Each structure stands twice: as C-alpha cells, then as structure tokens.
C-alpha cells in the first residue's frame, strides 16, 4: 500500500461520560504506514480516543473504519489493532517469551509451534531483548518492559498499533533512546503507529504527522513543522509551550496589548484576541534603547534556566505575567543580566502570530 491510502477513519466519533463530553464528534483520517502523534493536555480525551479505536469502549455515536471496514461494533479481540499501555500491562505470571507468544498461542489463528517460536524469536530480536526470554516481567527494567509490550503487539503483525503515552513511565534518558527506536522499528514494518502523548517535544519529535486534541476535538492536524510554525488557534500555541501569549484587543488591524499598539498584517480566527511570539524570537534590550525591532515591552528580569543548548531567561511584566526568552547558545554568548533590573523586550512584528475574533486580512 502507498502511504497515502487511509488505514483508519473516524466519522463523527462522540463519547460522553455522564455530562462530560470526552470526544466531541471527531473526524479523522490516518494514512497507512505512518507515525502519527496525538498531542493533548491531560483531560483532552486522548486516552478515550485510543480506547474507542481499540474497542475497549464503544462510542456514543459515530463510526470507526479500519482497513476499509466498519469496525464500530466489532469487539476488541476481533479488530486486530495493537495496543501498548502506559503501565505496560505485561502478564506477570508468564515469562518474556510467553508474554510475546501469548497472542499467537491463544488467539483465533493458531499457528504451528515451530512458527510461533520462529516469530517470537524474530520479534524479540528486533526489539533487542535477546537473552531475556526466560526472565519474568519483574526481573527486567522499565525500558525492557516497554520493549516486551511492543514486541507482544508487533508479533501479531497488526496494521495499526495504538500507543498510550508509552514513554511516560520512563526516565528522560531512556525516553529519548526509545523515541528513536520506536521510529526505527516502525519504519522497518508496514504498520501505522498512533502515539498519544502529553509532551509537545515528544509529539513533534516523533510524528510524521501531529494531531492536536483539545477538549475532545482535533483542533489541528499537520506535519510537526506546520504545527510548530503555524499553530491554528491560540490554545495550540499555548500547548506547544514555545510562545509568549499576550491577551489584548484586535481592532481595525491594530493589536492593543501590554506592549502598546501594533499594526498587524493578518490574524487567525480565534475565540479571543491573542498575540503570540515565540520564546526564541523575543529579544532583550536595555531600558531606553532606541533601536528596537518592534514593540517595546518593559519587564523585570527574574531568573535564568540553563538547558544545555540554550538558556531560558524569565521576565515579569508590570501586570505580573511571566515572559520567557529563549537564547540559543549557537547564536553567541548570552548577555549578562542583573536580577531584579528592568529591561525592555522586543521582537520583529512579522514574526508574531496574531489570533483574533476579527480577521484583519
């Protein structure tokens, strides 16, 4: 199959828990053989969406299509969709080998023993667990458990694997290594990964495509670059954790905010008027500077945070709003700042993204 063929499709899928609408009429089409990140804050309904696709829960309305078939009413065990749990959910009473062999042994297709051994061995080797076959799940590390959970799904050769915050239980080091490995493993197989995460870095780093979920709706779906450079609404910008967002009013093509009034060339439709500028596009100037590239925002310097490749400076504006400035160290040494002193923050207006009720276009 080509990458452009749809592997699964959601058609107005809605799921309610009492008065709470976890999924609000979601339409979504996923391409075959791709890595899709599903990014959303906690409570955005991302886990519900995964559970509905897997068949652990039924939607209140809407249809789910998988490989051209309506699977809405199919029980979970007849769907052939893999699932990797955040807590791994390994079978504690079985060895690693038997964990991986479980689906082959107990499922509907019952391959001969020789084939089971062959497939299990291959999969265990692919995820790099050779030598641990006879261990029990309590005798291996978190990262290894993650691999077992993955191998257990992949051995069934599913066309779609759902991963529910699979890296959430791992420490930072391991998380980065598993990110790369998950991508490599997926590329070797003809399978689509739908990876749910609450971490924007993870979502942007891993997905060929990223879907942003907010309050039970998919608000944006696109490549990581599209999402990063052009968040479609202010909630997405907020959630990406890369933008300073200022409330204000947009009127007749001019945005009035804490930094004064700035004429804007265009605005994206939004429920409120918000002015967004990326952390790494915000610059620091001394009070009284005259060569500002754009608007002037007076702010007091609070603290800095060293991140290895960059430094984040934290400022506080007059109305107690925290503003972050990200200085990448490849651009040269950062300037010395005095804690508690007032500075002026500025940026080139064309790099700002403006969201507004009024479309100044």
């Amino acid at each position, binding site marked *: 199959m080509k990458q452009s063929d749809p592997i699964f499709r959601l058609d107005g899928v809605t799921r309610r828990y009492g008065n709470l609408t976890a999924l609000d009429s979601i339409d979504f089409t996923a391409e075959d053989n791709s890595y899709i990140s599903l990014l959303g804050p906690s409570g955005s309904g991302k886990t519900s969406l995964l559970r509905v696709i897997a068949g652990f829960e039924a939607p209140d309305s809407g249809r789910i299509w998988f490989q051209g078939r309506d699977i809405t009413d199919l029980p979970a065990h007849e769907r052939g969709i893999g699932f990797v749990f955040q807590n791994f959910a390994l079978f*504690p009473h079985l060895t690693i080998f038997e964990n991986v062999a479980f689906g082959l042994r*107990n499922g509907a297709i019952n391959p001969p023993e020789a084939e089971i051994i062959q497939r299990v061995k291959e999969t265990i080797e692919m995820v790099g667990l050779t030598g641990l076959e006879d261990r029990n799940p309590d005798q291996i590390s978190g990262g290894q458990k993650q691999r077992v959970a993955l191998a257990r*799904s992949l051995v069934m050769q599913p066309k779609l694997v759902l991963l529910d915050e699979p890296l959430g239980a791992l420490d930072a080091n391991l998380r980065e290594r598993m990110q790369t490995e998950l991508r490599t493993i997926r590329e070797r197989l003809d399978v689509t990964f739908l990876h749910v995460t609450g971490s924007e870095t993870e979502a942007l780093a891993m997905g060929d495509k990223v879907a942003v979920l907010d309050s039970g709706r998919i608000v944006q779906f696109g490549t990581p670059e599209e999402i990063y450079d052009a968040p479609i609404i202010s909630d997405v910008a907020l959630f990406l954790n890369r933008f300073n967002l200022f409330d204000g009013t947009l009127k007749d093509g001019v945005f009035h905010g804490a930094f004064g009034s700035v004429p804007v060339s265009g605005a994206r439709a939004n429920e409120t008027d918000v002015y967004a500028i990326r952390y790494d596009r915000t610059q620091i100037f001394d009070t009284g500077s005259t060569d500002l590239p754009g608007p002037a925002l007076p702010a007091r310097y609070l603290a800095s945070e060293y991140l290895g490749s960059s430094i984040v400076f934290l400022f506080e504006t007059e109305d107690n709003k925290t503003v972050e400035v990200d200085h990448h160290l490849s651009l040269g040494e950062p300037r010395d700042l005095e804690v508690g002193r007032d500075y002026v923050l500025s940026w080139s207006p064309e790099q700002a993204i403006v969201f507004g009720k009024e479309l100044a276009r």
Partner: protein
Amino acid sequence: MESKVLKPVLAVYAGLFILFLYGPFIVLGILSFQQGPEGGPQFPIIEWSTYWYKHLFGLTPPSRIAPLPVGEALVRSLTLAFMTMVTSTVLGVMAAQAFRKRFRGAGLVFYLIVLGMMVPGVLTGLGTSLLANNVVGIERHWWSTAFVAHVVYTFPFAFLVMLAILNRFDGSVEEASWSLGVSPITTFRKVTFPLIFPGVLSAMLFAFTLSFDEFPRTLFASGRDQTLPLAIYGTFSVEIHPNIFAFGVMTTLFSFALLSVYGILMALSVRRAKKIAMQEDIS
C-alpha cells in the same frame, strides 16, 4: 515515658488474647488424654492415657460408654462442605466479576447477596425447612435443603473476598490480552484466573470452614441424617466423655492439614501476587 505504661498494658492484653485463643484448645487437648473409661471431662488427670483415642476407633473392649456416632456424620459434613465450597466459590467469583461493571440496581443486588450472612442463622434454617416442607413440598436432606442453606450463607463471604481482590485488579492486562486477539473467555482462563487465584483459594477456605462447622442453619434444614456438628451436639445431651475431646483434637489436626495445603498453594501464588504489585507500582 509512654512506653513504660503502654508496654505492660500491651503485654497483659497479648497474654489474655493468647489465653482465650488457645486456652480452650489446650484444655481440650489435655483432657483428651484422661484415663478411661472411668475418667471424666474434668481435672485432675487421674492418669495419662490414650484410651479415648482407641475408643474413638473402636479399639477398646466394650464398655458402658457407646462409641461416638460420628463416622457417617463426618463423611456427610466433609462432602457437604466440599459441595458448598465449590458452588459458593464459583458463584462468588462470577458475582464479583459482574460487579466490576456498574450496572443498574448494583447497590440493591449487593445488599441482597450480603443479606445471606446477616440474617440470623436459626431463622434461615427454620425458614428453609418450612419452605421445603410446607410450601414446595420436598423432603429435607443434608444434601438438598441444608446444602442450599449453606450456599446462601457462605456465598456472600466468597463474594466479598473476590470483590476485594477484583477491586485491586488492574484490568489493563485483560485489555492487553483482547488487543492481542484473544477472546474474553480465553482471557479469563489464561490471564484473569491465574492472577486472582490467591483470592479464589481464600474464598474456598472460607466457604469450606464455614460450612464444615455450620450449626444453626443445619439444625432445621438437614432433615433426618445429621452432619458432624449436629452429631457432636447430640452426644452432649446425654453425658460428656473425653472421647469427644479426642475427636476434637483429631478434627483440629485435620483442619491444620487443610490450612497447610492452603498455605502451600498460597505461597506458590504469592510470587505472582508480588509481580502484580510491582507492575502496579509503575503505573
């Protein structure tokens, strides 16, 4: 300062606790070695002997004291306890499994089940016998009416044990199994059951022991043939001889054997339980 007061108080408490827990059994054990057939169920021990144990198995020369009529009753009680154990445990597991999903009227059903252990036993027994004799019109037997009464009584215990176990059970292993293409029935057999097995053992132990020495319900519900507790009580009404104590020691030893089997099976599955606990810690 605090411990100076607390420690002696706790020591006295522990002493009393042990006295009342083991005292009766120790007295019973000592008296079972009373001399026979003249020796009675009281101190002092005239002479230590194993007469009453021999008497129990009919190895003594005939005397004015009749052998205990417990042989058949013992077999009946064991059979009844086994039947009750199997039935109540199966029902308990199934009912508790049903309660994992909230369903309409769950609260009401819960209280209806638990009622079985709340109602006074004598009344249940009497009610069962009246129901059988006067309403349904069937004869009372230990294997029919008494069996039903026992199940009604022990089922709530098995149910509550399993409810507690399943409450702590992390359902994601079952979902993992389904997502691997394994049907819910096979999943229960291959995943759920092995993991809840320690709980099932406890439920079985509860049901068996409760049924084995059940008295008030059986009194009216069992009909002509007596179970062991009834048979023993029947001998009290004539005259108490130390042979009953010897029998008590024997049954207690039997109970210990049963507990050992339970302990061994439990130890085997405790390793599994530990693994579950470790997995839960991560989540």
